[in-house]
């Protein structure tokens, strides 16, 4: 153990060595770009977002010919945040369409189950209810002579029946 510590201390660099090492290290570590002036963005983000098409400028010097001066690719300047936004919106659209498809499927299956019920209990047909009913020309006037039942009972007779409680 003593040997290893002695070995270590013998390998330990001097203060001067460390000083020189650190100076060299930081000289290389400092980005040379820091010496350059601040490079502000040439176009604002708003401008980039509005201009999606390639811009073709026409040189004023050219009398008859049209020269392509600059073709901008604003998509290259898009930030990763924009990409994330696009991906997120695409995922949400997919999810919504999936949910819509599922709800439509559910609706179909539920309607088929109700139709199965409707076989047993037929629902009133709205179309037939809207049609005119067959009503006699006498309206709701009691018809005295016409028989309303098979045994020849007339409406008048039926109306004459009085139900009284048993004593």
């Amino acid at each position, binding site marked *: 153990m003593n040997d290893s510590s002695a070995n270590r201390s013998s390998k*330990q660099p001097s203060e001067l060595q460390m000083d020189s090492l650190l100076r060299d290290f930081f000289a290389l570590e400092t980005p040379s770009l820091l010496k350059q002036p601040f490079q502000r963005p040439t176009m604002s983000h708003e401008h980039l977002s509005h201009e999606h098409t390639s811009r073709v400028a026409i040189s004023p010097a050219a009398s008859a010919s049209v020269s392509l001066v600059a073709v901008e690719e604003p998509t290259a300047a898009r930030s990763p945040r924009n990409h994330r936004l696009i991906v997120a919106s695409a995922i949400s659209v997919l999810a919504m369409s999936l949910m819509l498809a599922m709800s439509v499927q559910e609706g179909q299956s539920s309607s088929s189950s109700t139709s199965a019920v409707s076989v047993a209990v037929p629902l009133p047909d709205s179309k037939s209810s809207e049609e005119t009913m067959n009503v006699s020309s006498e309206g709701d006037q009691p018809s005295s002579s016409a028989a309303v039942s098979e045994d020849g009972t007339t409406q008048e007779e039926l109306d004459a029946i009085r139900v009284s409680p048993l004593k």
Partner: protein
Amino acid sequence: MAGPAPGHLNDPERDQMIDTYYREHSRELWALFYAMCSDAERAYDAVQEAFLRYYDYHGEPVRDLRAWLLRVGQNWLRDVARKKSSSCGLLPGLDEFAGRRESAEDILRLSERQGQIRKAMKELNDDDRKVLVMKYSMDWSAAQMATVMDCSAAAVDMRLSRARRRLAEVLLEQGFEYE
């Protein structure tokens, strides 16, 4: 180091002020960010981000621009650290040697050395790293550092010496070879 209130200056004046401030303080800001993350490229990005945000900022006048930039850069560094985004650059530090006359072996060896020291710097505690950055990156005198660290110049020298010794120990453990 109170900065002016450029939020209400005209654009050309403001641009000029930002240029001047960048020229005078970007190096110092980089060093401070470097002390936080031990990543030269990321520290540089933090400086750029802070200045860009200030360039786009049109809110209330900023009373202390240095503090404002530091806070923005620091927050940005924290965000990046949280996301742990792995940048796909060249070999660490290798791009700095592009265009130099040394042979490929020399460049590679130098790059490896830089990487080893960088790794060792990360192993140090914050105080040791800060004192080394102030001394060797910002080139501050012991008196300047004493003011910032609120201690005597002799104490600064002691801390520097201790930080160098710790770095040497870490490098030794890594098998670093001195030239």
